[in-house]
């Protein structure tokens, strides 16, 4: 139990997926202009990464390993994730319309998010078992949620600041990401 909690804290905060591993930079910069949209995106990412790391771990354990075709993991994972996101979208639309309303818009945006594939591959490389994979996926996605929501909050305030012209737009957002990354480095002594 303790090991699992440490794993979760490690993936969510210490090795934050965006700020120290640089996965999922695209939505982090693209969909972080407003807190509500950022939170919606973060929620959808939590959902998709948790489900996809579970499915990827299942496939790796029960299909790829017995047939000795682990080398196909990159191809299989990316296709499974793409199909899974489509499937999740259809499922939510049909059976949970309220959840779909809040998360559905963002689901297709996540298909090629490198964080999803990155987590699935990391789970395999680090030889996590099924439970550890799901926890790692969930925690990593929570780290993404944290980062994107904080970023959106800061960006809403930056709107009113007087920024030098060359730094307006993406550049200042990257400076903010740099400062956030320094702040998150402070957690590195935790584990």
């Amino acid at each position: 139990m303790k090991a699992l909690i440490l794993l979760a804290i490690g993936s969510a905060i210490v090795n934050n997926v965006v700020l120290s591993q640089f996965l999922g930079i695209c939505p982090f910069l693209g969909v972080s202009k407003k807190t509500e949209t950022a939170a919606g995106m973060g929620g959808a990412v939590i959902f998709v990464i948790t489900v996809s790391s579970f499915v990827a771990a299942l496939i790796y354990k029960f299909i790829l390993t017995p047939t000795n075709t682990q080398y196909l993991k990159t191809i299989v994972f990316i296709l499974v994730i793409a199909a899974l996101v489509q499937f999740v979208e259809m499922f939510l639309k049909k059976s949970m319309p309220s959840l779909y309303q809040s998360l559905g818009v963002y689901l297709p945006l996540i298909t090629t998010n490198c964080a999803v594939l990155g987590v699935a591959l990391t789970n395999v490389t680090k030889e996590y078992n099924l439970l550890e994979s799901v926890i790692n996926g969930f925690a990593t996605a929570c780290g993404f949620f944290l980062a994107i929501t904080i970023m959106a909050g800061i960006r809403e305030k930056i709107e009113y600041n007087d920024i030098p012209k060359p730094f307006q737009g993406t550049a200042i957002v990257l400076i903010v990401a740099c400062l956030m990354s320094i702040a998150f480095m402070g957690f590195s002594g935790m584990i």
Partner: protein
Amino acid sequence: MKKYTERLYNGIIKENPTFVLMLGMCPTLAVTTGAMNGLGMGLSTTVVLVLANLLISAFRKVIPNGVRMPAYIVIVASLVTIVEFIMKAYTQDLAEQLGVYIPLIVVNCIILGRAESYASKNEVLPSIFDGIGMGLGFTLGLTCIGIVREILGAGQLFGHQILSLSWFTPITIFVMAPGAFLVLAVLVAVMNIVRSKMEAKGKPLAKPSGCLTGDCSGCGQADLCTGKSGVQETVAAADPQADKEGK
């Protein structure tokens, strides 16, 4: 022949994926802790890009339009797997350093972007040269950023100590995660100045596309990423500021 040199010039200078188009930012941030890593990542991406362009261009009349994205992804993922195994066999240190970012070449937007916007519409030979140009442009970008970060962060160049530690104190943060964001922020700002200067001269640079700008029009994955047309508008509608700032 001119057509081919034009493709190379286009990829390396005019539409340089790192400096001008601002594509493929995840690997750019992640692997440029040193010049060597940048070079290795750039070259492996180049290999995948050239072969992917070749295959996609060769099969462009066979692949049905409706399933072209999944087909491209299978092609790219297979090539990436091959490159990963070759790197693990011959350049173990580099493969270990780059780690998960090698398989993640699959989701690099430059590759699917070129497949969608060039290779799927053009003959095989120009597509190969387009891949070489874009790949070398990306390599150039990664290596330059890697050189800056390595010199400032460790006083080294390609692993050799060039600034003596007797008087130079390495600014270690440049080889760590925050340094990547900082260097990229400065790069974007410098490019903004260059862009406005070139515009004043009447020679505007190609517009940046890709995730950094939130503009999905130039991205090959836009089709897959947005799933179906309309999602992008929905997000824009839910996010009115995005629309305002985009203009």
